[in-house]
């Protein structure tokens, strides 16, 4: 199924909604960290302030099992949310500066 969404806000809302759904499905008990061949993925260390850009922890190749892949996908989507939130913040700050003026400090 192909979808086209022209609004970034709509896309984000849809994405968030789907992420919640995906997370719920992934958490149905079909897998456990012990069943995976690698370490359990962790949420990327992206701060809510200035925003970090560190890559997610699960970077060592593709997950080797479907359950691990589902868990990794959920983690990746959470990381993407945080990264894009930080992106939005930085772009907003840049726009504010670009559209501003610096007054004459002698006045």
């Amino acid at each position, binding site marked *: 199924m192909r979808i086209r969404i022209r609004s970034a806000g709509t896309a984000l809302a849809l994405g968030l909604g789907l992420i919640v759904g995906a997370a719920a499905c992934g958490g149905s008990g079909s897998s456990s960290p012990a069943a995976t061949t690698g370490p359990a993925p962790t949420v990327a260390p992206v701060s809510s302030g200035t925003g970090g850009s560190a890559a997610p922890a699960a970077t060592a190749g593709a997950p080797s099992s479907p359950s691990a892949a589902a868990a990794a996908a959920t983690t990746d989507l959470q990381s993407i949310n945080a990264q894009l939130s930080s992106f939005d913040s930085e*772009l907003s700050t*840049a726009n504010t500066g670009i559209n501003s003026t610096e007054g*004459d400090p002698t006045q």
Partner: protein
Amino acid sequence: MKRSHLAAATAVLAAAALTAGLATPAFAQTATTSGPTANQQARLAFLKARGNGAINVRLHTLSNDGTLVTSAVHLTQSDQSTLASLISADEAGLSSLETTIDNDTTVPQATTDVRSIVTSYRIYVLVDPKIHLTVATDRGLAAVATFQQLASADQTEITAATSGNIAAAKTALSSMNNEVVLAENLLTPVPGEVLPLVPAGYPANKPTLQGAATSLRQARQDLGMAQAYAGQVQSDLA
């Protein structure tokens, strides 16, 4: 006797006139070289205070920007180094300018120096936006990298899937990847566009900043769509 009194009075007047004649130019000269008037001194103090305040808030902004740049790990080493050098140079320049302003002794000197806080640095309208545009690019590229990692995980899921709408998941994954490529192509050139911009080129270089911001907005839209497709993959496989 009368004659001698008259002569004495004349001599006194003549001496007074001579004294006045000699003293007047001397007094005038003293008045022009004795430093600024009270109004000038007040204006000078005002300019120094305004200058110091303007410099300090800019130094604070640059300090925050330095922290931000350090966290931008997806920038190329060259871009990160360029931003760090820019911040250091501006901090050093503004600190030096602060000393210069503190040592200014005339209003015209101080006026010129205080104005140069804006004209020589353009911290708020150029430097800070450059930094935030570049760091936004870093965040976007970080998301691109995560999407690429996600695509690998999604592919594993699709390959192993035995139920769900597998064909739709494949299509959604392909669409996600296409959007990510579009975003990456918009993001990658931005640092190279904005980092060379200098205060002397402002405001002529403002459209370059605006164009870079537009590219980032378009990239954000692509990444938002990629996000939606990513969710669609999961939902198709559920």
